[in-house]
């Protein structure tokens, strides 16, 4: 099944709704709790990245018996150096947003930790797309459970 969600940049009040909704559906499918948790955390991080940095984004979640795939595409400033952005603690979030407790530079590292596969493509001034794949139990990577 395919689910679509729209994410608006700067809309902190609605931030996390898409991840919560996706989580609720995965729960109804009876997927393993740990997998749901990994998908939820990674999708939430990606959703927050759109809210914090981009103007507008779309989340597409494809759920099949073998894997959950989540693609998050945004129109935004893009990431100039993806390798640098993958480092823990690296953040370009403005001070005001950091003061709200967001933008700790753990977004992409957390996504990498939770997903079995992560691809990030970005074009400066155009936008970023994140693709994550989560394999269903048997192939799943261990959840070390670290949080931001």
């Amino acid at each position, binding site marked *: *099944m395919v*689910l679509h969600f729209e994410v608006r940049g700067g809309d902190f009040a609605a931030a*996390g709704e898409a*991840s*919560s909704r996706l*989580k609720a*559906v995965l*729960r*109804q*499918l*009876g*997927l393993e*709790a*740990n997998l*749901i*948790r990994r998908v*939820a*955390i990674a999708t*939430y*991080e990606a959703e927050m990245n759109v809210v914090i940095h981009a103007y507008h984004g779309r989340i597409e979640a494809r*759920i*099949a*018996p073998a894997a959950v795939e989540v693609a998050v595409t945004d129109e935004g400033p893009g990431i100039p150096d993806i390798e640098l952005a993958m480092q823990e603690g690296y953040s370009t979030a403005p001070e005001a947003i950091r003061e709200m407790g967001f933008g700790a530079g753990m977004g992409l590292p*957390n996504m990498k930790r939770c997903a079995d596969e992560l691809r990030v493509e970005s074009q400066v001034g155009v936008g970023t797309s994140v693709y994550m794949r989560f394999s*269903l139990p048997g192939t799943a990577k261990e959840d070390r*459970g*670290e*949080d*931001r």
Partner: protein
Amino acid sequence: MTYYHSVRLDESKCRGCTNCIKRCPTQAIRVREGKARIHTNRCIDCGECIRVCENHAKRAESDGLDAIRAFRHRVALIAPSTFGQFRGEYSLGRLLGAFRVLGFHDVVEVAEGAEYASAAIRMAFGRYKGPRPLISSACPAVVRLIEVRFPSLLPQVVRVEAPVDVAAKLYRRRDQEALGLAREEIGIFFITPCPAKITAAKERKEAGQGEIDGCIAMADIYGPLRKALVAPDTPELPIRAGGLGLGWARSGGENQAIGAGELLAVDGIHNVAAVLEEIELGKLGDVDYLEANACIGGCVGGPLTVENPYVARVKIRRLAEKLGTSAIKPEIEAETEALEKEGFFTIPVPLTPRPSLVLDQDVKKAIDKANQIEETLAVLPGLDCGACGCPTCRVLAEDIVLGQASLTDCVIKLREELARMAGDLLNLAQKLPPAMGQEKKEES
């Protein structure tokens, strides 16, 4: 698997309104044939429906005071919230004494058990290495909510016995022997503000791990207790608990008693669910411990209490301050440490996920059903009116796909269907027999 529940429906009082279905945090209630039906595998016994029902059709099944007569030696476990229930001037010792007048031989303060539990929880922080925060297991409705809606958080639930169980176990350990009575001669009864505690006690008992023999609703013995409180021969019993134990009656009291670490308190079952959602998304990782109470205000807001929870909360705070809230007694800390080493505080029954929200055991079939739910939801009006007996349009869509409801249960869809049929009827009615039809055509 079927689960026992203390929360029941009195059919004769239920008028089939939609108040309870809207408030239920696990969407466990449907109105069918004019009566509210509780899905037993979803119900968490939080008592939210008891509180909201204007017809008092929801109640908690509890023991009557007569039940204590089956035992030779009767023990009353007094919840800290009890102390917030009565207005007017009286001593705490006298309130304990009032239970003697009602026929109990011993009166045990759960608040004392709470002090041991607080110290044991603090010790659990040190050992724990998993994802934060740890979540309190003191509120049985919250634990059940996690089992039903947030099974991925079960490993974060702290495995320390709730104060009431600590108090019961301590009594069995210390006093039973001193009395020289057999286990079954002693009946331990919890005077409960809470329907979920009734369920929890019963389940423990059935699993062969329960020390509590019965639960009496606080509201049910409120009258006799008030009388006993002012009776001339009511004895004055010594108070053993300190203010920190007593404080557990109100939201924030548990954290105050634990006293160390980054602590967060949330009360009200819907607020608790919202915070658990956030934890599942990996937020709140900087919090060490979550105190979570299903009732607003904490246990003083329990559905089986009598006093206004806000009044009770102020009263508890004042009493706690009077008893002293600086620290838990060193001897309790020391004893907790010793008991902890022998595993005294470990909850002996496992926490089990109760994934009652799962659409199908087969993932493939579940995905098909989830797709059908989205399709069905798209044609429903989105009013969430509740007239179909389901709390929301989404729940109706789920019930339709699961074969428990039909599209025409929706009053809006039914009207649409009727309008379409009426249109068909009109069309048919306007059709003339061929012999007349020709004429009509010429006229127009």
